[in-house]
């Protein structure tokens, strides 16, 4: 499903975020990516969604070299991937319902079907009664769950999550972790970058240290 083939990423001033990274993630696998702050976890996830491009090697998603995708092909890769961003990237002038609706509008879903899906996704993360709430009216944990609802509403075959349990108390973090397990159970490939690997028992572990895989 995902293959990193001797991938390096150097950011412009000369920071080596990732160097000579090779691994495979199979379909329906659940993988936890660990490592210290600045180890390159976010960078790794961004390369998969082609938000950043590798400066060496190749990143393949479903056999496709995503670094070589044209500008017009990029949107279609991203629609197949659900992503929870480290900084969540919610739209603060839209309510919960509208935030979750966005990926469906983008993908061109008929409005009625889209509305049903949005409600189902909000229900799934326990925000069914907060449809009209603006993100600022939600607690940190609720915002985190809203970001997850938006990532899964399109029913992607692959879910990438960057620190989805940061700043959450242990109970809420466990709730959030359970949501990812549920998606994994129904066959979604899940990659999670986190310090809290303990929350995901049974997941395969990749440990990063200064941009390199710890064997």
């Amino acid at each position, binding site marked *: 499903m995902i293959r990193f083939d001797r991938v390096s990423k150097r950011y412009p001033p000369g920071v080596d975020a990732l160097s000579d990274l090779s691994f495979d993630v199979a379909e329906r696998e659940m993988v936890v990516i660990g490592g210290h702050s600045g180890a390159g976890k976010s960078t790794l996830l961004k390369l998969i*969604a082609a*938000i950043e491009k590798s400066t060496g090697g190749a990143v393949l998603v479903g056999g496709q070299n995503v670094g070589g995708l044209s500008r*017009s092909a*990029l*949107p*279609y*890769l*991203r*629609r197949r991937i659900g*992503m929870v*961003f480290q900084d969540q*990237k919610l*739209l*603060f*002038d839209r309510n919960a319902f509208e935030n979750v609706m*966005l*990926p469906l*509008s*983008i*993908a*061109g*879903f*008929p*409005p009625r079907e889209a509305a049903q899906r949005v409600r189902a996704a909000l229900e799934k993360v326990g925000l069914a009664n907060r449809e009209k709430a603006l993100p600022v009216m939600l607690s940190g944990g609720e915002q985190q769950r809203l970001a997850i609802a*938006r990532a899964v509403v399109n029913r992607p075959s692959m879910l990438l999550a960057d620190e989805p349990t940061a700043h959450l108390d242990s109970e809420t973090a466990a709730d959030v972790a359970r949501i990812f397990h549920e998606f994994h159970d129904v066959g979604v490939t899940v990659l999670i970058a986190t310090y809290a690997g303990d929350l995901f028992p049974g997941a395969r572990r990749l440990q990063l240290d200064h941009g390199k895989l710890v064997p």
Partner: protein
Amino acid sequence: MKVWLAHHQEAARLALRRLTAAPLNSLLSLLAIGVALALPAGGQMLLANALHLAGTTSAVPQISIFMAANAERRAATEIESRLTRYSGVKQVQFLPREDTLARMKANPGLRDVIEALPANPFPDAFVVTAKDDRPEAMEKLAVEFRQWPKVEHVQLDSSWVRRLDALLKLGRTAVMLLGALLGAGLIAISFSIIRMQMLTHRAEIEVSQLLGATDGFIQRPFLYYGLLLGLGGGIVAWLLVGGAALWLRTPLSELVRLYDLTLVLQTLDARDSALLLGFAAGLGWLGAMISMRQHLRQG
């Protein structure tokens, strides 16, 4: 198809929401566009009215023949029969000097002056319509008539027709030039307003791109915004021109009545109105399009 329509509707609604979210800002933008468009639109309105006026009054150029003041009626009768027989003449109207005097006396402003005169100052006159009303042919007839006995003065009124024609042509060119110039201005206004809009909605653009939005999807609400901006500006221009027409109607009617003409100033007709609104909306859209293209290319 229905889905496609729903998404356009959604984008248009979003654009409208943004336009009404900052009402004062939007109002001032619309006013700026409206005033800019009102100039060529107003020019077109005046032009259409002038064309109408020209059409109702001077469609047929005529030649006026004035007899000498001392000519007797017999001389006039002689000229009349010559004119009726003359091959190039289509129609002759005889204006006896008594009738002219009576008509002029009917004008209260002139009555006192005329009554103070010792004798009728007006000569017998003819108004001739030619078969061939091209300026050269008319000129030839005039030269001929001037040589007839007791004819004092021959006046060709095709010259003012030609002058009016040239003036209208000039007016049309001016309106077009003004339209092009202010149209470019409208594109520039729309361009910079959309640019600011994009800065305001930067987060939304970025997130949409991360979620797999195409450039087309991202552009759509901004294009509608530009279109609505142009359309709104067009409506403002239309109202300004209509208001000006109403306001000028009475004084202008009085002015042209002095020239024995009648004119009820009309605002833009349906075709010109549709043209104005379409032009405005199209240019607003175009400005937004250029702005978006430039922004997305950079990003």
